[in-house]
């Protein structure tokens, strides 16, 4: 994952600031310009980058900062906090509860990695001892059921779907009903890819949600997405109750900044990151350690704890 590259650049800028003998507003502007440039290159939403710049500026009132060592500390902490805010909505991520029947619905844009991530998540919880089932409520995409079926079979996870039924709401209901009856702990419902411009598709998603009443709705975002992320994420959020985010395809060169914008748009936490096409390629995600690692912290962790 090349988020480290972004971290290295931000860190470099912060270090350059430490070398300045006088830290005036010009030095801060230069620092912010470098950081914002790096964020834009990572596809972070332009508006969020603006916000970050303004927030840091507001927090560091140059006149109030007496000593220059204090200045550095304040600036670095402020940058760290703002970066954390980008990826951390400050809400506890949802997790399935044992002894209860949990339903998760996967939604997202076309080709973002829903079907692949469904199996990954199912396997993750299966290994934690849960009884997990997969439902294919994608009746639109050619070969969708075969894809889920082959993935699930390989991972030895029970699945439900149909080659002939065209109504995804019906399949979702039937599948969830069947797994509920069979006392499954976790039921994961895969849905078709969709986008905000086609209202019919969003309506369908709302109907599936209304039918299966998921305990959590996972929004899957492709880590390479650019500036269109924000508008799409917002629209999904308005249509269904997004509870968690999974960012996929982070095994490549992508820095994931576009997908990260979905955190602000939905107010939901990133719970996992997809790091490959194989069923074990799924990493847990938590925001603050992630930023610390991204910045190759050490010097900053100390600062933040004070």
């Amino acid at each position: 994952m090349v988020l480290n590259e972004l971290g290295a650049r931000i860190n470099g800028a912060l270090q350059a600031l430490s070398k300045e003998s006088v830290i005036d507003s010009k030095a801060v502007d230069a620092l912010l310009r470098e950081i914002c440039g790096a964020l834009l290159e990572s596809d972070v939403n332009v508006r969020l980058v603006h916000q970050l710049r303004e927030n840091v500026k507001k927090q560091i009132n140059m006149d109030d900062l007496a000593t220059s060592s204090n200045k550095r500390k304040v600036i670095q902490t402020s940058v760290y906090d703002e970066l954390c805010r980008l990826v951390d909505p400050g809400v506890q991520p949802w997790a399935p509860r044992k002894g209860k029947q949990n339903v998760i619905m996967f939604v997202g844009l076309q080709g973002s990695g829903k079907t692949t991530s469904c199996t990954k998540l199912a396997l993750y919880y299966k290994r934690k001892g849960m009884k997990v089932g997969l439902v294919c409520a994608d009746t639109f995409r050619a070969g969708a059921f075969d894809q889920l079926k082959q993935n699930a079979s390989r991972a030895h996870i029970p699945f439900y779907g149909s080659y002939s039924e065209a109504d995804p709401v019906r399949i979702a209901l039937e599948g969830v009903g069947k797994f509920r009856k069979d006392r499954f702990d976790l039921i994961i419902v895969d849905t078709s890819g969709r986008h905000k411009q086609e209202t019919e598709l969003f309506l369908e998603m709302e109907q599936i949600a209304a039918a299966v009443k998921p305990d959590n709705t996972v929004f899957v975002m492709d880590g390479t997405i650019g500036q269109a992320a924000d508008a799409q994420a917002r629209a999904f959020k308005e249509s269904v109750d997004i509870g968690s985010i999974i960012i996929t395809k982070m095994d490549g060169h992508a820095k994931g900044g576009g997908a990260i914008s979905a955190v602000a748009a939905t107010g939901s936490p990133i719970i996992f990151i997809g790091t490959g096409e194989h069923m074990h390629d799924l990493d847990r995600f938590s925001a603050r350690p992630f930023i610390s690692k991204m910045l190759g912290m050490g010097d900053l962790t100390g600062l933040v704890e004070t």
Partner: protein
Amino acid sequence: FFGMFKNLTSGRVLTADILAEPMARMREHLANKNVASDIANEICKTVAKGMLGVRVGGLQNIRQLVEQSMETALTRILTPVSSTDIIRDIEHAQQKGRPYTMAFVGVNGVGKSTNLSKVCYWLLQNNKRVLIAACDTFRSGAVEQLRVHVRNLRALSDNQNVEIFERGYGKDSATIAKDAIAFGASNGFDVVLIDTAGRMQDNEPLMRALAKLVSVNSPDKILFVGEALVGNEAVDQLEKFNRALRDFSGQSKPRHIDGIILTKFDTIDDRVGAALSMTYTTGQPIIFVGTGQTYTDLRKMNVSQVIRALLRA
């Protein structure tokens, strides 16, 4: 965004100082339209350079000047220099009695298989006989996906002019493509469409496998399928696909991407920047734009519309 520039007094000569602010705004404007940062910077630099020393005329303001220069630059970048007439190329191959071959390549999930099927539909409309080679032998359901498309296309076009060539999963895709082309040649197919597995541009084994498929089969067209949703990664994807074709081919005259299919154009409103990033990076034309999930959602790119969307406030 342009609204905030004041008028320049007529007769004034444009300097780097005067241009700095509007160009910085333009860079950010383009970034917001999803143009990759590096590309936006380079284009703005070139445009600014071209405007240096220009004497401002009577009624012009800097907004119009920047916009005009930008429009000219964008038109130059987005207008194809090579021919994009595939039907003519196919007929050329027909005259030589061999099938015309097209490989669809790109990263995961961008729409290779779907848009291959759309291209197939378009070819069927043009009375071509098409063989689809199922060379994604990795992703679950990839073969069945194409089978469904072929079934649909046969039903839609009410003829038997499309077939699938498949060898299941796990096999070497270069060999399947080779067998498909041979099958196509001896069975009177006009076109062979080669579907390939999605791959990350940094995955060396998979990129080597793709270079092998290309060098073994020398497809007439290597089409890079990229989605309009992609941000800065567009540049890296294209550069590395081209680099892999060059470095891993083992041939003295290696191939490169010949054209682009820009997919999911219906999902991005007016953030059309990927079109610019991709053409700028490769110098190759966008041959088709994918505008939806059905067989008819395939268009030629409308350059002036894209430019208008790029410059729109």
